[in-house]
């Protein structure tokens, strides 16, 4: 089939040569089809990488942070009467040094993929809050509503010992994408239905994937908890690879009762969640 095109009048010899060339170009050959299939396959694989690392990553990140915002709103509504009455009774001495609240440690046993906390690390950026669910399987880490998984063998938030969680470094919402940006003293906030735990980043360790002793009660030292309350964030390293792991350790600083009562320094951030 030749295209009806406006062409300059050609001399007969030119015209026949042109027709021959067009016929040669239009011929479907095995080699030609194979080549085109290979090129197509290459494009499909590249497109898949684009989908996985950016498109799906962005969709999951959005879903996970808005699910965490919803969870926070739920807990905040339930606990709001308490903080609203507490400040009014405590108002006579607003500058008095508050006695540090005893952390309320959740003793309930949670099922796999059940959400029991929210993680918020300001260093990772505003709006990077994530639900923490029990278990570190792909049903938790690759989910639209969770993204951070708690190692069930480790302690709960605020408990003496090690509260260890895992998240993806890249893709699937990348809950710990910026883990290498941590600076000593950076806060790590963990919200539960009972209130807000503040941990401070201490140090970072690059380990092999089999180094499960980073999850120990005293990481890399002892499985027996003594007095320290620690948090361990684990994720993959380097970016876009699973060759190594990063473990980021933090130490417990304080507990603030009431999920609707976030620490003042992040209250403005938290108010913007889900908006």
């Amino acid at each position, binding site marked *: *089939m030749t*295209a009806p095109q406006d062409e300059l009048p050609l001399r007969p010899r030119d015209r026949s040569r042109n027709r021959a060339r067009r016929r040669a*170009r*239009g011929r*479907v050959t095995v080699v*030609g*089809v194979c080549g*085109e*299939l290979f090129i197509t396959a290459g494009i*499909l694989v590249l*497109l*898949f990488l684009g*989908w*996985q690392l950016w*498109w*799906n990553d962005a969709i999951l990140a959005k879903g996970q942070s808005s699910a965490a915002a919803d969870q926070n709103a739920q807990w905040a509504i339930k606990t709001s009467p308490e903080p609203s009455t507490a400040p009014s009774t405590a108002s006579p001495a607003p500058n008095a040094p508050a006695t540090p609240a005893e952390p309320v440690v959740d003793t309930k046993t949670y099922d796999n993929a059940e959400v029991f906390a929210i993680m918020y690390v300001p260093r990772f950026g505003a709006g990077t809050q994530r639900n923490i669910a029990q278990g*570190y*399987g*792909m049903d938790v*880490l*690759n989910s639209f509503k969770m993204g951070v998984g708690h*190692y069930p063998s480790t302690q709960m938030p605020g408990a003496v010992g090690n509260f260890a969680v*895992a*998240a*993806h*470094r*890249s*893709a*699937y919402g990348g809950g710990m994408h910026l883990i290498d940006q941590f600076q000593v003293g950076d806060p790590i906030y963990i919200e539960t239905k009972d209130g807000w735990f503040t941990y401070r980043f201490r140090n970072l360790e690059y380990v092999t*994937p*089999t180094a*499960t002793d980073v*999850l120990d009660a005293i990481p890399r030292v002892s499985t027996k908890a003594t007095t320290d309350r620690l948090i361990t964030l*684990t*994720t*993959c390293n380097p970016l*876009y690879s*699973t060759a190594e*792991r990063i473990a980021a350790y933090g130490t417990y600083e304080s507990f603030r009762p009431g999920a609707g009562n976030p620490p003042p320094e992040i209250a403005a951030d938290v108010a913007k969640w889900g908006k």
Partner: protein
Amino acid sequence: MYGALWRILPGPWWIRAVLVLILVLAVAYALFTWVYPWVDSIINPLSVTVPE
């Protein structure tokens, strides 16, 4: 293959170009919506599961 597709499409070159663009976008949409999530659920190359 693609040459044959180009010849099958009707109209002048720019109509064909628009049609090709529509086809490419439709294929990309199908891939992103159904095919890639399914492939991902099978291969999952970025798992962080701890060998325990």
